[in-house]
Structure formats: C-alpha cells, structure tokens
C-alpha cells in the first residue's frame, strides 16, 4: 500500500476522533506475519508521537497463509491486578479473550478461533492447528 493511500485511510479514521493528524510515519511491521503497518500520529507542537499503534491496513488472506504453512499462535499472559489470564498477543485476527481460570480460557479458545475464521470466510478446513504459549513473570528470591 502506498503512503498516500495509508494517509487517506488515517485521515478518515482520525476525523472520527478529536485528534488532529499532523504527521504520519509509516514503516512495515517488524513482524511481517501480521502484515500490518506501524504509524505515528503527532499532535501539533509536539515532537513525540501522540498515538502509535499497529493497524491492519491490509486484509490478510488466511486461507493462503494456511496453505503456505502459516501457524496460528496465541500468547497468554497474566493480569495479576485483575486476576485473569488473557490473550496478550496472537495472529488470529479479532481474538481477545480473558478468564480468571486458565483451564476455562484454554477451553474457550478453539470455539472462539473457529468462529472468527468462519466469519472471515477464508478458512475452508475443518481443523486448524494453533500453538498456545504461556507467558508468566515470576521472581525467585535468592537468600544471601
């Protein structure tokens, strides 16, 4: 996608919010499997980015990726403050889930992924493999 087209999309999105779009930096995502572009929107008079996010500007054809050997991955993180496990990173478009119980969250995942891929209408297979990675930060106190 050309920068002019990206700017046009961003302008239409920003117009819906109360931000003023002053500057846009576009570069390819460092994680190419997401096929997204990273952009920064700066407010007038500010040097730093006001808003920075990955926005999928390009539709991903999941069926093509699957045929090319793409694997779906779901990284589950722990929100200690809220007391829940949640999907922190994934390449399944639209997937965001949480549950206080890790077992329940793992039970929800296949049904949720199946619904999303069915709605995308790009998946004609009956079963789609996906990896689940758990990310938990702990501390070990070493007595001195």
């Amino acid at each position: 996608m050309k920068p002019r087209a990206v700017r046009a999309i961003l302008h239409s999105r920003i117009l819906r919010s109360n931000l003023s779009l002053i500057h846009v930096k576009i570069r390819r995502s460092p994680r190419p499997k997401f096929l997204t572009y990273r952009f920064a929107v700066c407010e007038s008079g500010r040097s730093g980015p006001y808003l920075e996010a990955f926005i999928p500007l390009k539709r991903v054809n999941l069926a093509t990726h699957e045929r090319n050997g793409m694997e779906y991955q779901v990284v589950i993180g722990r929100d200690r403050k809220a007391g829940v496990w949640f999907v922190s990173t994934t390449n399944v478009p639209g997937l965001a889930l949480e549950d206080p119980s890790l077992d329940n969250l793992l039970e929800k995942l296949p049904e949720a992924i199946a619904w999303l891929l069915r709605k995308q209408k790009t998946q004609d297979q009956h079963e789609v493999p996906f990896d689940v990675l758990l990310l938990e930060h702990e501390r070990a106190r070493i007595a001195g």
Partner: protein
Amino acid sequence: MDYYADVTKLLTDAGCYRVAIVRPGVEGWESPRTGPFLVDNPIRSQANANNILRNAGLAPVFQ
C-alpha cells in the same frame, strides 16, 4: 472493575455491532473497519479491553 460498558459504548459509537453470542460470556462483534472480533463479558483486564479496541480498529484508551 468491569470495562464492558465503556468498551461497548466506544465500539457502538465507532459503528461496531454485536452479531452473535459465541458462548456464554463471549460475544461476537463486527467492525466496519476490521471485520469480526470477540468481546468478553465481563472485561476485567485493562490490557484485554485495549486489545478489543485494537481488534476493532480503534486506538487503546485505557491507561
């Protein structure tokens, strides 16, 4: 803290709408920008609330 009411308000304001109950506590929504995505009910995690907004093509607002 339940972010569900705030998130769904932002989503409906952006033109998103609920299309299905995928399973109890998990709703299927449709965004005119990004297509289908999931919304938990309730939403207890702030990070998850921001992820839902990102999936709908919106900027994360919860800090």
